[in-house]
């Protein structure tokens, strides 16, 4: 791994398209997110040709991409399906990780993806950026490996003059590396497009996004497993070849969740660099998440910050944790009702595709926050 900073830019880079929300209370101009790619229907990516009729290609029609990202999108159209799938994976993972939290990573139906709440440079924004950029690394690396992306580079470090000769001479680099490099280019580009005043909050936000994007990408690399094969004389280990194996994305999500719990609060200084806000804490590494502001109150619905509130959320009466009714409902109390649920149970799983399940009916107490 090279220096940490350039790697961090993947996820939230697509915030370029400016969308002015009509809500009168919204003060800031909200920017769309490239993660919007993840919310596009699968059909768009499966059959991009239908969107290419006329002079307006698909890339300019998706809100949320920045100018640079639109260019990259046009250059690497076959990658966009993977980027979209990656963003989707990231968003799903975010929702799974935060399913018991006050903020549950809910998406809204516009190009900002998560709504105005992530315009606040909070811990949650840090996580969202990291997990989406991780999703793209994961997905691009995967697509590269099944040979569906024709443009997976060979060794991005030194562009070969004649690819075929280069391939015969020295083989090709790992595709996880390619996924990482591509994601870096695509997600981080939006944070580099605009120059804000040094030391301003906006510049701080850029740096924060870049850092968290990198942390997400590194989480994927960190979780890859290395497999090796000895194939020297008579199969001895005088010659070993190793390659990387992607872990399941849940593992990456869990790692990032840990990083979220240990995220560091930083501030932007006058020289335009991030620095730790409370000097007693350690300086974050390239794999840690950083945030600028404390999270808003997610308890009550607040359209100004975009918080949906926890009213109506299902909580766990017996739990003492975040999903417990006490914490999740922010002390407002909860309603209980008995409901009968129908669910699959005693499932038996057969390779490849057969799941034999029974259907069970259970009566459960459902608690929802007031």
């Amino acid at each position, binding site marked *: 791994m090279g220096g940490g900073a350039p790697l961090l830019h993947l996820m939230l880079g697509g915030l370029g398209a400016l969308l002015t929300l009509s809500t009168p209370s919204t003060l800031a101009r909200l920017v769309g997110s490239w993660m919007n790619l993840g919310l596009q229907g699968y059909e768009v990516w499966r059959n991009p040709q239908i969107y290419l009729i006329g002079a307006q290609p698909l890339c300019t029609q998706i809100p949320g991409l920045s100018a640079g990202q639109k260019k990259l999108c046009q250059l690497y159209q076959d990658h966009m399906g993977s980027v979209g799938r990656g963003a989707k994976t990231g968003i799903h993972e975010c929702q799974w990780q935060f399913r018991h939290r006050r903020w549950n990573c809910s998406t809204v139906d516009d190009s900002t993806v998560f709504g105005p709440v992530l315009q606040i440079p909070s811990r949650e924004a840090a996580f969202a950026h990291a997990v989406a950029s991780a999703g793209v690394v994961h997905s691009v690396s*995967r697509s*590269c*490996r*099944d*040979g*569906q992306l*024709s*443009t*997976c*580079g*060979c060794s991005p470090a030194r562009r070969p003059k004649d*690819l*075929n000769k280069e*391939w*015969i*001479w*020295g*083989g*090709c680099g*790992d*595709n996880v590396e390619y996924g990482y490099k591509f994601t870096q280019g695509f997600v981080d580009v939006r944070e580099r497009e605009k120059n804000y005043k040094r030391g301003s909050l906006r510049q701080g936000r850029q740096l924060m996004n870049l850092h968290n994007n990198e942390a997400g990408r590194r989480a994927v690399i960190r979780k890859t*497993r290395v*497999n090796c*094969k000895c*194939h020297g*004389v*008579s*199969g001895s*280990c*005088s*010659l*070993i*070849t*190793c*390659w*990387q*194996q992607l*872990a*399941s*994305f*849940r*593992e990456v999500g869990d790692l990032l969740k840990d990083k979220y719990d240990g995220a560091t609060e930083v501030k932007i200084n006058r020289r335009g660099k991030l620095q730790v806000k409370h000097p007693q804490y350690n300086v974050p590494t390239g794999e840690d998440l950083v945030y600028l502001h404390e999270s808003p109150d997610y308890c009550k619905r607040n359209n100004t910050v975009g918080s949906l509130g926890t009213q109506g959320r299902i909580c766990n009466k017996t739990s003492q944790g975040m999903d417990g009714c006490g914490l999740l409902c922010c002390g407002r109390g909860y309603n209980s009702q008995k409901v009968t649920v129908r669910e*699959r149970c*005693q*499932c*038996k*799983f*057969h*390779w*490849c*595709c*057969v*799941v034999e*399940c029974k259907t069970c009916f259970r009566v459960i107490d459902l608690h929802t926050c007031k």
Partner: protein
Amino acid sequence: MAGAIIENLSGRKLGILIMFLLLCQVVCFLVGALIAPAPSSVLSVLGTKCVDKQYSREKWYYPRGKGRCLHRISNPQDPEVAKQGISANHIIFTFQIPSPKDNQILDYSRWQQNLIAMMHLDILYKEEEAEFDPNALMTIEARLGYRNKGDPDDRWTEYATSTEERILDCSISPEHRKAEYMYNCSSVPLFELGSLHHDFYLLNIRLPIHTPKEPRDHPTNVYLGALTDMWVAFIHQNGGFTKVWVSLKTVFFPTIVSIMVWFWRRISHLARPPLLLEYMLMVLGAALTLLNCPLEYLTLAFDCPWMTVVSDIRQGLFYASLLSFWLIFTGEHLMDDIERNNVRAYWRHLSAVLGGCLCLFIFDMCERGVQLSNPFYSIWVTEIGTNLALAFIILAGVCAGLYFCFLSYMIWKVFINISKKRQSLPAMSSTRRLHYEGVIYRFKVLMLATLLCAAMTIIGFILGQVSEGQWSWDENIKLEYTSAFFTGVYGMWNVYTFALICLYAPSHKRWPKDQDTQSSTGEEIEFSRLATEPSEMSSITAYVTKAATD
């Protein structure tokens, strides 16, 4: 072996020769470090899951090009898949290699020499009960085909087909026992090709199950659980490395051959018949020549699947002759005044070498030999095969241990004798002194050189195991360490053999004339204990014992 060149060469000439050899050694190392790429590369490919409800063994399924399979699934656990009535028998994992890069269709080159495939399965942990056994026996129906440049996209020719069994080795740590986590499964060897003769390869793999109609007394592939993806890592030698390697061989081959010719002409000009050690030097040279012979050129024109077996054998022969040479060299320098000069005198020691090599040869033939007919074969998959392979390897290890005991014992004895002779040296006549000094000198030089070479090899090997394979000097200069290790070690043993043949050849020079007036040519021959008359030896023995007691 009286009066080898090494004893009679002047210090200046010896210095020049050693400098030259060292230079060759450094050049070999740098060629590997700076010019050659890494010895091998990996192409890790994710299998495309093609679906065909009318699966036929005669049909090829491939993900790219004209006639590619159109019905694919991404996740077998998707309820949609079950709804469509797809079963494991309809799913074919396809791997079309090499993958395209940068909008170019790449093809394999014959310079890339060989292909090894390792399979890796992604199996999800299911909280629901899945029929999964972490050490399940998989039945794999595998089919390997090839296509050449200029062939139409759909013309795949069968290369090998086989139904193989492999044992899964999966585990999951308790903290990872949650949904969406994957089992940690180790890679399974799939096939090995000794030659990469064709341009494109296609691998079709099916993990069939018995249909309800068929009898299920021996359930196949039932315990595979939530298998979602199959990866295959294809390892090939890098073309650049082959080029550098073959070039080295092309240079070494004539060099060693010519030094051997020179050596043999020198011996045949002597009045006496060649000594055992001289024969051994020739054997060592011949084994190295066999190893140096750039047979790899053949693979560029012909399909030579036997190439890996042949290179294993060549390497084995070289090791065997090197080990035997050390033994016999030490034995001939024992200075215990027992006439040997005969291979039969070393049968116990040599049988350790031969036994070890034979074990490794049998093991190699069981694995790579059988792979000639079925590339999917692996000795490690069955329990009997594993035990057999282990038995041979352990036996070879025992032989190696035995050999080193013999060798260390003999070296120890030589050193004891050396210190004994040292004490009696001043009392000897100058010719005898020169003879023994020569023996001691020859032995010590070889000992030093051998230890140095062996230590360098071992250190290099260990460094290679701990390092990342690529060392960076600065931003611009990247050292390819693994390649440098290979070319360096290869060059080193060539230089070593060259030096041995060159320096241990018999010298034309007489004993230096200014040394002592007492010495005469007649006396020299008489005192050479390696000369043919044993009666003369006993008199020397008597003399030495007397000198020692004095």
